[in-house]
Every structure is written in structure tokens, then in C-alpha cells.
């Protein structure tokens, strides 16, 4: 651990939106992200729907073309790769998708799906060797190799997700992006897949980017956690620090909103209920992005966009004026925003 495998600098992914009546706007799905994923670590990327976490994951692998900034993978600039370089990069970086029912081609057998990377990259010559490798991969993810000839619809969600993981691992990648990989699964199956991912990460020395809206799962699997809000990373740090002592008001609210299956603790907890909705990423507030919902807004928040700066534990960064600008936290009640006690 230590050196950087994947790194984003000022990464932007903007989508044009056709406005009704208005002139065409821009949807800022990812809006200036600096992120380093260290070799061998599991980085959890957490945020609510629409915060751009999936787009970020896709942009790191150039599955969505970035509109600004840069991404480097193991020292190579991903945005300027030619066709062959891109292909090789995609061998070295796998992706597991959210919906296991949609991410497998219904007309191809499990074996055909898992062996696709092998064929694409010419990793095993000959059908026999590919079949052997597919069997290995299926065993690796806890599936019986005998089911290789079956079609996806014959499997349950959890099993399909295992197939998806086997496909992502077929190219022997260094980097694995799991985009909401457990979100569509049943609780007990989520645990199976989480355990599997953790086991694989250790066994294969993978670098894992675990994207999820589920803070508990992220906390469970990650070494470090990055929190995203409206296209920007607003807090990042060691999992223990972010998970128990968050420094950014948004993370605090997010953490307090996660239900805990202990009635006594749940009753005793003080919950910060945020008012209102996440603003649209095509209409990002000026200054701090979180100021429209933040219970602590004060002077600089309206105009100055806070940068990530050290806060709390070592290695923990938060983008909040409470930690940078002079002045004490003020509890204000502007329109639509109430400060909860």
C-alpha cells in the first residue's frame, strides 16, 4: 500500500441537457474531483443518488468520457490513451455493475460471459484452456463450474452478481470498481457478496473502489471512505475516522440518517434530519454546494466554494468552512433551512 494506482485531478463530467424553454444547460455530474486510489486499498465512495458517484467510477475507467481534468492509471494518462492502450487498461481494470439482472447478456451462457475478456485479450488460447480458466474463475467466486453452460435467467440475483464478479476478474485486473454491486440484492445475499469481495480483494491483492449509497456496507468493507455530494468529494479519510467522527456537516447528517438495527441505540440516537432535497446537478448552488441544506451556514458559505482541507483525524480531509475560515459555527435559519438542535 502507499503508492497511487488511480488518480483523478480536477475531473469533470458534464452532460449537456436540453432545457425546456431555457437555453441548453449543463448537468455537472462530476464537477472537479481530486481523488487518489492507493494500490491495494479498498476505497469506499459513498453518496446519495444523483451525486455523481457512479459517473465518477465510470469516468475513471473512461467508460464515460471526461469533459475536463485528467485521470491517470498506474502513471499513464487515461484520457489520451489510444485504442490499444485503452484495451489494455480495461483488462487491468474491471467493473462490477449494480443490477445483476441487467449486466449479463440474457442470450449468452455464463461461460460465454465470463470468457469474453479472455477472448478479447487473447489471454488463453484454445477453447479447452478458456473453459478451464472459466471453471477456475467460477470456483473463485463460489459457483459450481458445472453451471457454466447455463443462461443468466436460471440464476438468482446473488449468483448472477458472482458471475459478474467472475467476468470482471477474468482479465486478472489490478483495479476493480464495484458500482452499487450489492444494492439490488437481498440482505442475506448482500452479506455473502460483501464477504466475497473482501476475500477476493485480499487474496488477489486488488485495489477496490466500492461505490455505494449504503454507508454501513461501505464502512464495513473500506479502508478509506470518500463522501460525494453534488459532483464533488466533500470528505475523505480513514474509514474509522469518517465513519465515527465525520467533520463535514453533510457526512454527519448522512451518518445519523443510517438506520441501525438496534432499537435501543436507534431510540437514543440524535438524528439530524436534513430539510429539503439535493439541488439539481444542473443548477449547482454558488459557494458551498451544501449550503442550501446545511444547518451551520455562515458568512463565507454563500460565496466561497470550500476546498478539501485537513480536519479531524490524520489523513482526514473535509470541504467545509468550519475547518478553514476563521469564525465560529453559526446556527442560522435562512429560508427553507432549519438548524436542528
Amino acid at each position, binding site marked *: 500500500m502507499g503508492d497511487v494506482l488511480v488518480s483523478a485531478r480536477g475531473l469533470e463530467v458534464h452532460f449537456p441537457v436540453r432545457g425546456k424553454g431555457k437555453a441548453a444547460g449543463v448537468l455537472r455530474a462530476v464537477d472537479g474531483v481530486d481523488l487518489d486510489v492507493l494500490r491495494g486499498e479498498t476505497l469506499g465512495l459513498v453518496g*446519495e*443518488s444523483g451525486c455523481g458517484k457512479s459517473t465518477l467510477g465510470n469516468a475513471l475507467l473512461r467508460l464515460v468520457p471526461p469533459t475536463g481534468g485528467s485521470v491517470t492509471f498506474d502513471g499513464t494518462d487515461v484520457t489520451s490513451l489510444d485504442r490499444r492502450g485503452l484495451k489494455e487498461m480495461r483488462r487491468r481494470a474491471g467493473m462490477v455493475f449494480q443490477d445483476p439482472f441487467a449486466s449479463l447478456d440474457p442470450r449468452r451462457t455464463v461461460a460465454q460471459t465470463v470468457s469474453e475478456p479472455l477472448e478479447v485479450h487473447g489471454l488463453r488460447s484454445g477453447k479447452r484452456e478458456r473453459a478451464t480458466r472459466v471453471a477456475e474463475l467460477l470456483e473463485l467466486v463460489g459457483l459450481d463450474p458445472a453451471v457454466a453452460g447455463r443462461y443468466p435467467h436460471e440464476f*438468482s440475483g*446473488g449468483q448472477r452478481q458472482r458471475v459478474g464478479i467472475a467476468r470482471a476478474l477474468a482479465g486478472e485486473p489490478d483495479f476493480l470498481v464495484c458500482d452499487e454491486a450489492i444494492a439490488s440484492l*437481498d*440482505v*442475506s*445475499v*448482500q*452479506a*455473502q457478496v*460483501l*464477504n466475497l469481495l*473482501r476475500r477476493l480483494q485480499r487474496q488477489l491483492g486488488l485495489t477496490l473502489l466500492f461505490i455505494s*449509497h449504503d*454507508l*454501513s*456496507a461501505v*464502512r*464495513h*468493507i473500506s479502508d478509506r471512505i470518500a463522501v460525494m455530494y453534488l459532483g464533488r468529494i466533500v470528505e475523505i479519510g480513514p*474509514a*474509522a475516522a469518517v*465513519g465515527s467522527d465525520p467533520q463535514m456537516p453533510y457526512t454527519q*447528517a*448522512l*451518518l*445519523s*440518517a*443510517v*438506520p*441501525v*438495527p*438496534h*432499537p*435501543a*441505540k*436507534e*431510540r437514543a440516537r440524535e*438524528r439530524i*434530519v*436534513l430539510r*429539503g*432535497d*439535493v439541488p439539481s446537478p444542473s443548477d449547482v448552488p454558488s459557494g458551498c454546494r451544501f449550503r442550501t441544506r446545511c444547518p451551520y451556514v455562515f458568512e463565507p458559505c454563500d460565496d466561497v466554494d470550500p476546498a478539501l482541507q485537513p480536519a479531524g483525524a490524520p489523513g482526514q480531509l473535509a470541504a467545509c468552512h468550519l475547518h478553514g475560515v476563521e469564525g465560529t459555527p453559526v446556527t442560522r435559519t435562512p429560508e*427553507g433551512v432549519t438548524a436542528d438542535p
Partner: protein
Amino acid sequence: MTAPVLEVEDLRVRLRTPRGPADVVNGLSYTVGAGETVAVVGESGSGKSVSVLALLGLLPARVATVTGRAVLQGEDLLTMPPQRLRQVRGPGAGMVFQDPMTSLNPVLTIGRQLVEGIRAHGDVSKQAARGRAAELLREVGLPDPERALDRYPHELSGGMRQRVVIAIALSNSPSLLIADEATTALDVTVQAQIIDLVEKLQDEHGTGVIWITHDLGVVAGIADRVLVMYGGRCVEDGTVDDVLERPAHPYTRGLLGSLPDLAAPVGPDGEVPELTAVPGLPPPPTDLPPGCVFWPRCPVRADPRCETEQPPLAVVSRAAAAGPGGATASGAHAGDGAGLPHRAATWCAEEEVPRG
């Protein structure tokens, strides 16, 4: 507590499927008191959603055979004629589904959909109904309710839409509110808002709530009583503290063990422990095992009867320790909420050990 709002007794649902008859719900009994929240917990395929759809006659009669008794304010929902059932659905029981986008009609304004619901169950003028609609939207916390009446569902965010659905469900002040995975599609911060809202409304109106979910975390926050379903059966029920803090059924314990613990993720050795996932998959309702439904996945299997004999829903609380075997399912229903028994359908109920 007064007489229960809803009393369900031995509810059974059998569906006709291409793969033969599926016993989706097998003898479910519970009561919901006024102002009480009963959480029905289960994974997909456990029959939790079907059981409430059956109550309101929302299953296609061609496919589904529903038996049992479900008394809502003195009337049996399962035997009443369809016209009466339609009348009951609004003022008797409101429903909130998982996906607010699909339960709202995309081509009608919010106002129109609310007004329709209000006027369907009462002789109100259009103007009055519109006023009531705006009032309802204000009550569920929609900003600027007057303007929201003229908006279309797609113009609102997911959380706002779910608020509208709740407003529609509450428009006839039902005595029972059924929320089927109502917050599953929402973000946690929005989920917290909705849960707050439902609790507030419940306090104000004394509505009984059936909260169907797979999320035990939500259950801990909202429920008074929990009913854990597996393979169409209730495998454990009791107060929320009993079931979540002292789970007796191996399945409930497995389910709780599957959850990553946000509060205390690090074990004694400083390592994040593996989750104790339940292996395997729930049985298909077309092919339920003969003995205990959970037997094929059960890590305990401590009793010879597990494989062959179905365990009854038996009291597992301290009282039960004195008389092994415990009370059977039928005798346990007392109208009053105090001293609710903690019951589990298993041969392998463990001594009451709080989970750590």
C-alpha cells in the same frame, strides 16, 4: 390500547404459476392496534408483500386463492363484495408502494389525483376537495402546496413524490396505513424525513401502520412490533426489542448477522469481522421443504424434528423456559398490547442471549 384496527387470522395465499401451485403465504396471524406500527420483515419471496396485497383484494382473482380472516374495523376484508372493498380501500386502509413514480399517474397533475381520491369517498365539492388536497400536501411537508397541486409527478423529486403518495393514502384519514417498502427507493436522508413524517402523522391521527420492509435498521427505528417472515410463514414475532435484541430464530439471527454494523464495525481484534451471511437461497414457494422452512439453510439444525416436522409458533420468553414447548400460535393473541409474547417458529430456539 383499544380494539385492534386490523386482525388477521390464518391468512393463506396460493398462487397459480406455470410451475405449479405456489404457497406464498402459509397461515399468517397478527393484529395491528390503533397507533401501533407492525413491521413485516422478510427478503424477496418471503410473501410479505403478497400478504398485504391479498388483504386489500389486490391480487388477480384468476391466479390467487386467498383464505383466512382479515377483520378491519369489524368487517372481514376477505369475504366482502368487491364494491364494498373498493369503498373500504380509501377510508379504511391507505397504501404506499415502493416506487412513487409508478403509483402516480404521470399524465395527471398532483392536484387532480388527490382530488379524485377525496371525491371518490365523500360528497365534496371540487373546490373543497382542492382545499383539502392543499392542506394534505402541507401536512406531508411539501413546500408551496398550492403550486404543487398543478404540477406533474415528474416535476417532483423522489422524496417529494413519496410524500404525495402518502398524502393520497391519507386523504381519507384511513385507520390503517400499509407501507410496502415505502422508503427502499429513497436516499437515507430522505428516508429519515419520510419516517419522521409517518411517525408524526401516526401520532396525530392514531393510524395503525403495517410497515413492510427488508431493512432491519428501519424496523428498529419505526416499529413497535416485528413479524419476521420466511417462506410465507411468520418465523418470529414480538416487540421490536425482543426480536432485534434477543432474536430466537436462527433465520432472524442470520439476517441480523448479515448486516454490516455501522456503530461497531471493528471486532475485538481490531479487524473488521466477516459478516455471518446466511448461506444459500430462500426456497421457491412452489417447493417448500416439509419440515422447518429454514432447515435447508439453517446453521443450527439441533433437533431431529427439523427436517420432518413443522415447528409451531411458540412463546420463547422467560415464561416459556418453565414450560418447554410453550404456547401455540392460536392462544397467544390477546387484544391488549401489554406483555406481547415473543414467539418463534423453530425447534432450535436458543436461550435468551442478547446479541452482541
